[in-house]
């Protein structure tokens, strides 16, 4: 019953050099979540003759898209407009979004969500059968499509099931990519380990799309699944592509203590209150509007995530949070919504609270605290998902186009996976269609990689460091240095620590030397990836001496458009250190302005109508 990818993938063998086996495809997806599967289908539809493969370290339906809860944004109703969605996204991102990308994004998002409907996604409906939409944080209009509060789960399964009918798409399930193959400045494929057998193989491709998601596991307290280790970011970084805007890390304001399980923003969109230890709706003290009994768009609990997480820190400093064994918390109150609404719109929230926190939100307050949720930065791409490295594309959380700027709005990321997944899929397919067949000349690089994996890990003796120790120290250090609030001294200390950990990583010891499903080797390689990403986060945060969106410097509390209306780009130097450069933000129609939430924010369109001269 063993599934053999060489049978399953109808690959074209292109010879053996030394000991490394190889296979070959036209377009290769690394990652099988929302962006990867959408890209695979898009590529197949551009040119049905292309040979497309998805390589993923987990079966695609295990991908982290599955955990997304609240919904996916796309203008759907007559009272809404593309310009309003664009304005909310740009102001939410504190003007660091590239506005040309945002304009394409808001235009294509509704079409992509509709396409998913045509593939069977069980979107919630109005009584008349049309798509229903809900409110979301930072959004001025209701435009978030949802499938109860398991939107990501339904999107991922719909996409996975739909890919099964496309013959040109084959899969390498549970293969772990360790390196990109690059020759003459062009991508040639990847080297991957088949987990089941331990076989190391070169998988050649004319174009490669990274869709590996985020890197939340770099931090100690995160909503991100165990598999979110920044793999694609580090792979691209090591291959010479820059990482963009990595200083912008989103803390979601409502995670369950201990587990870090996310309580979706939809809970606040449906009318939940944020309360401090005195039962007071504290957000009113932070320039987010006045408390109303019913939710008001772009106000109070429906403010953007960065501002809500920052408000928590201030409440904590004022002694108005509740201490628990897993850190201070505030409360999310859903009791007034009633059992019927909670069961209809927020069933997963109730299930998670009952199963993992042992409380029932119908009758009890939910303890919550800010939790690392999303990486705005990533592998820098253009609006077609292309990176500066020829033939290498990226889409989804691993990428930074950037539509999210300095702070992503909730429900934009699922739509981003679809829009830019499809764009990257089409662009990679077109690129691959123009390229000659891969000639396998990169096989020597693959042999080098096999040797590296053996000498540095599997066959190495005498290592003294445990994976868990280095991982825990990395997580503690980055939280201390690059948490919700940052400053020069702690960032510099954080960078020093990362360099120390990089050195100690070389002395790693594995208990497991076997070939069959070696998860310890995988964890070690993931830790290596995370150390690179963590170093990039700290480096870019150290260099950005201003405060913007999710990047708040206590020593530079103001936004500085003169110097920093720019994307950071961290390149890897030969010695492994990072070099920071900047590229300008693309402004089309919305000049930088102050971010305003609450009652003052009622007329944002006056600003949106202005044009840059």
């Amino acid at each position, binding site marked *: 019953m063993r599934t053999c990818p060489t049978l399953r993938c109808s690959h074209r063998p292109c010879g053996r050099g030394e000991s490394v086996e190889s296979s070959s495809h036209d377009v290769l997806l690394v990652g099988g979540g929302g962006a990867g599967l959408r890209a695979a289908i898009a590529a197949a539809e551009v040119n049905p003759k292309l040979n497309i493969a998805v390589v993923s370290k*987990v079966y695609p339906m*295990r991908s982290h898209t599955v955990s997304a809860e609240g919904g996916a944004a796309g203008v759907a109703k007559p009272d809404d407009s593309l310009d309003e969605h664009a304005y909310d996204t740009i102001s939410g991102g504190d003007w660091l979004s590239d506005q040309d990308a945002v304009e394409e994004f808001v235009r294509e998002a509704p079409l992509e969500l*509709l396409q998913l409907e045509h593939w069977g996604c069980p979107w919630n409906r109005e009584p008349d059968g*049309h798509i229903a939409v809900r409110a979301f944080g930072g959004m001025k209009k209701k435009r978030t499509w949802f499938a109860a509060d398991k939107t990501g789960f339904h999107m991922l399964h719909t996409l996975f*099931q739909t890919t099964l*009918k496309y013959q040109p798409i084959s899969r390498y399930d549970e293969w772990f990519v360790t390196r990109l193959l690059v020759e003459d400045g062009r991508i040639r494929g990847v080297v991957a380990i088949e987990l089941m057998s331990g076989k190391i193989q070169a998988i050649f491709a004319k174009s490669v799309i990274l869709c590996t998601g985020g890197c939340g596991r770099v931090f100690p307290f995160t909503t991100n699944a165990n598999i979110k280790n920044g793999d694609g970011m580090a792979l691209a970084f090591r291959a010479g592509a820059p990482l963009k805007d990595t200083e912008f890390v989103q803390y979601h304001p409502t995670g369950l203590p201990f587990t870090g399980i996310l309580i979706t923003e939809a809970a606040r969109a449906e009318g939940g209150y944020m309360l401090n230890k005195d039962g007071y709706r504290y957000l009113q003290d932070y320039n987010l509007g006045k408390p109303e009994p019913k939710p008001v768009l772009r106000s109070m609990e429906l403010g953007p995530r960065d501002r809500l997480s920052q408000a928590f820190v201030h409440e904590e400093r004022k002694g108005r949070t509740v201490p628990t064994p897993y850190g201070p918390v505030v409360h999310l109150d859903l009791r007034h919504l009633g059992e019927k609404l909670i069961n209809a719109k927020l069933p997963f929230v109730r299930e998670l609270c009952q199963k993992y926190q042992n409380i029932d939100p119908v009758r009890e307050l939910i303890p919550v605290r800010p939790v690392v949720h999303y990486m705005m930065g990533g592998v820098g791409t253009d609006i077609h998902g292309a990176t500066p490295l020829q033939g290498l594309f990226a889409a989804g959380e691993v990428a930074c186009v950037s539509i999210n700027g300095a702070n992503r709005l909730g429900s934009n990321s699922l739509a981003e996976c679809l829009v830019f997944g499809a764009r990257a899929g089409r662009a990679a397919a077109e690129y691959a269609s123009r390229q000659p067949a891969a000639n396998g000349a990169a096989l020597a690089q693959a042999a080098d990689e096999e040797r590296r994996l053996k000498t540095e890990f599997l066959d190495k003796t005498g290592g003294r460091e*445990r994976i868990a120790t280095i991982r825990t120290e990395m997580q503690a250090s980055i939280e201390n240095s690059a948490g919700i609030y940052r400053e020069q001294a702690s960032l510099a200390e954080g960078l020093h620590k990362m360099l120390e950990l990089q050195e100690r990583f070389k002395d790693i010891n594995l208990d497991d030397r076997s070939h*069959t499903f070696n998860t310890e080797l995988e964890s070690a390689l993931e830790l290596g990836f995370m150390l690179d990403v963590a170093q990039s986060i700290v480096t870019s945060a150290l260099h950005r001496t201003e405060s913007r969106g999710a990047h708040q410097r206590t020593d530079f509390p103001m936004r500085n458009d003169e110097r920093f209306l720019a994307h950071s780009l961290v390149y890897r130097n030969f010695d492994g250190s990072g070099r920071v450069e900047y590229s300008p933000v693309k402004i089309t129609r919305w000049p930088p302005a102050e971010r305003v939430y609450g009652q003052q924010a009622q007329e944002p369109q006056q600003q949106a109508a202005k044009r840059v001269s």
Partner: protein
Amino acid sequence: MADNIVLEIARYSPESDHEPHFECYEVPVRREWVVLDALNHIKDTVDGSLTYRWSCRMGICGSCGMMVNGEPKLTCATFLSTYARNGSKVRVEPLRYFPIIRDLVTELGGFVSKLKKAKPWLIRDLEQPLSQGEYLQTPEQLDRYKQFSMCINCTLCYAACPVVGLDPIFIGPAAIALAQRYNMDSRDQGSAERTAVLAHPDGVWGCTFVGECTRVCPKHVDPAGAIQQYKIAAVLDWLKSFVTPRGRDVSNQAAND
């Protein structure tokens, strides 16, 4: 509640073992720990070679199913403290009826190809262009298949199903529920195409209706209900084939009109 608890874990490596054996590990019992936390504790601090799958730790990715004291469970949703009485041990084994790759990791390729056999995608006679908007579907029509769309592919139902144990070719509860998820969807017109697989002897008729699949399902999908529903539909379809030319599922077609 005891301070410590012993986990008896099935270990097997094809490179060194002829057959699985048990090894014992003592771990602290913390109130908020699930069985998966105990496994992670062992892997991080005691034995890095312990091998299992996990990812989301919130009961939605479907990776971490194992036999816990003989019952198929998601280990991320099973509190350790439940078992911590009177010095009792917790036995953790790979999911039953699947080939074992290593320790607690089972082979899933066969399961995934069964899912594909169910043709789990929307089948239409005519695709409506996107420019014409969504296929309308009322909340009531959504409710008809919603439950069957909740399957997370954790395979606990296969580990609970005695028919899967006797006949590995049996398509199994999750795949049948998935077929029924599309058959019951008012936008779908593909139930006739799915009949060939489901009405096969290794399809629904393999099921002897033990109902264990529904009992162990962590997402209340009720595969047993889907199977019974489909058996009735298949019999009706067979009868209809004598009176209508194509033997189509006429009632499903009507729902789309």
